């Protein structure tokens, strides 16, 4: 009784906390380190400057001169703001949405004012009215932009929820499930210990498949999932399946979408190893290039093995999920390179907590 009484409030608290986090995901400041976000800010601000130049110009020939006049004031402040937001991203993200919103606007106001003041002083006069005017315009534009990003984020959130469904669609082939069960049945009498381990691996694999796949996970977890999967395939295919892992320990704590590697490794087995009479090797490289995580995967290519449909679906699915999580900063390339089929992925490095 007492235990139950203690347990209940904490369960409630947990529930509340998770619902707050849920809320956070839809009402959040944009990721100021995301290339796509930065590009959109640059585009909108410069478009606004151009629009202002169009309004101010008396004749068509004046437009560029007016634009440069405005750009002279806008660009230094814009880059200073972007740099500051880049640096403050972590701190801003930890705040409640309203507070983060206010802080971001404060950064815009202060930096616009400061940069304009510095530039004016270089010209030795300060036009206080003009400066105030600029700051008000900058804050208004920033508020509009932040609201745009919030609305866009909201519109994308159902898609993020759908990522879980999509991960399910990139599911393990029934072909694999039934063949594995058949292989386990074959060793139950002769090697019960191995059969136990195989069933445990199979259970873990399906637990991951059925899990909530919206949250990013550490690369380490995804790698161990792939190893369990490959253990099962090894039971079935024996020496025909050779795997060569090269993992940079630095990349192990990178955050990645769940089920990022497993479907690709499964495709490599299905299209690269199973159609071959001789043994084949799957190479998996996971490394760091600067602040980006690079993943390379290759397997023997069998031109005559034509069932490419499943592979294309898995690739499209992973590409889509990478885009959902990393926008334009992630990339996936796939193609035939001589005797081997290669997949290369790049994504920004975000450290797992």
């Amino acid at each position: 009784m007492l235990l139950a009484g203690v347990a209940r409030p904490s369960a409630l608290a947990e529930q509340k906390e998770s619902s707050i986090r849920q809320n956070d995901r839809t009402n959040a400041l944009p990721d100021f380190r995301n290339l796509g976000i930065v590009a959109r800010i640059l585009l909108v601000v410069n478009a606004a400057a151009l629009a202002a130049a169009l309004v101010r110009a008396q004749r068509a020939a004046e437009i560029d001169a007016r634009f440069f006049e405005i750009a002279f004031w806008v660009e230094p402040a814009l880059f200073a703001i972007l740099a500051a937001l880049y640096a403050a991203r972590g701190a801003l993200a930890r705040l409640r949405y309203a507070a983060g919103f206010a802080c971001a606007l404060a950064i815009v106001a202060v930096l616009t004012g400061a940069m304009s003041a510095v530039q004016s002083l270089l010209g030795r006069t300060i036009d206080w009215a003009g400066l105030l005017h600029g700051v008000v315009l900058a804050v208004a534009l920033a508020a509009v932009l932040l609201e745009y990003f919030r609305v866009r984020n909201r519109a994308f959130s159902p898609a993020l929820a759908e990522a879980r469904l999509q991960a399910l669609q990139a599911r393990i082939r029934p072909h694999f499930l039934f063949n594995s069960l058949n292989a386990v049945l074959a060793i139950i009498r002769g090697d019960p210990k191995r059969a136990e381990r195989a069933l445990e691996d199979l259970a873990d694999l399906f637990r991951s498949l059925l899990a909530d796949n919206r949250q990013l996970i550490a690369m380490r977890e995804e790698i161990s999932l792939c190893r369990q999967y490959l253990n099962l395939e090894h039971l079935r295919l024996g020496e025909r399946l050779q795997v060569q892992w090269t993992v940079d320990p630095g990349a192990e704590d990178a955050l990645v979408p769940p089920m990022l590697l497993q479907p690709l490794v499964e495709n490599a087995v299905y299209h690269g190893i199973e159609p071959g009479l001789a043994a084949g090797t799957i190479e998996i490289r996971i490394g760091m290039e600067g602040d980006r995580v690079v993943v390379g995967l290759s397997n023997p290519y069998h031109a005559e093995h034509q069932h490419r449909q499943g592979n294309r679906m898995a690739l499209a699915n992973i590409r889509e999920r990478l885009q959902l999580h990393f926008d334009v900063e992630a990339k996936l390339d796939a193609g035939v390179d001589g005797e081997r089929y290669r997949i290369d992925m790049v994504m920004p490095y975000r450290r797992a907590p």
Partner: protein
Amino acid sequence: MTPLRVLIVDDEPPARARLRELLDDCRAEVPNAIVGEAGNGIEGLDLVVSSTVDVVLADIHMPGMSGIEFARHIQGLEAPPAVIFVTAHDQYAVEAFELNAVDYLLKPVRASRVASALKKAAAGPRVTREVLDRVDPLPRRFLSVNERGRLTLVPLTDVLYLKAELKYVTVQTGEREYLIEESLARLEQEFAGLFIRIHRNCLVARQRIRGFERLADDEAEASWAVLLEGCVEKLPVSRRQWAQVKALARS
């Protein structure tokens, strides 16, 4: 009752082990003896030819040669064994089997199903070549040539051209020629991606075409011959086929 002589063809060692166990389990009900095991269709064909086999348990999804292609080749033998297909999950094949009353087992396989399939195979009618052609959507990878009771497999990729003469079709490779009892029209249909018809009686391998040579044009219209890589013979292109062959040569 003499025991049924059974051959197991599956590329996965545990799958073969499982079938061995199950055949053992149902031995009291259906007497059977395992005469051999093969890891792929090509080895399986050797065993079918070299030993007496009543029933083959053949996995469908195998490297080198699918179980269905394996079954198509053994139909060329004088007294082919019955085939029971085994598959984990091959929706297309299973539908085709249902439609054509072909017997099959699903992995994981059960002993009771093995017993009933063996009984049926021992008594019932065998699957025919026509049915297998219908069941298998993919072209074969080999042509099988029956020479004095021996089965020779000729990979399609080795074939330069196929030429119809009277009852037979000549299969020409870089090394030698073989005779098979198949219709050129059916071969053209099955291997449409690999071969192109240049004449009423001749299909040539698209990949091997090196060029064209103008034959003596004493008549009003010129006629052409195909030059194939690894082949000294010049194969005449009929007027009817020339437009099509030329279009291919351009692309």
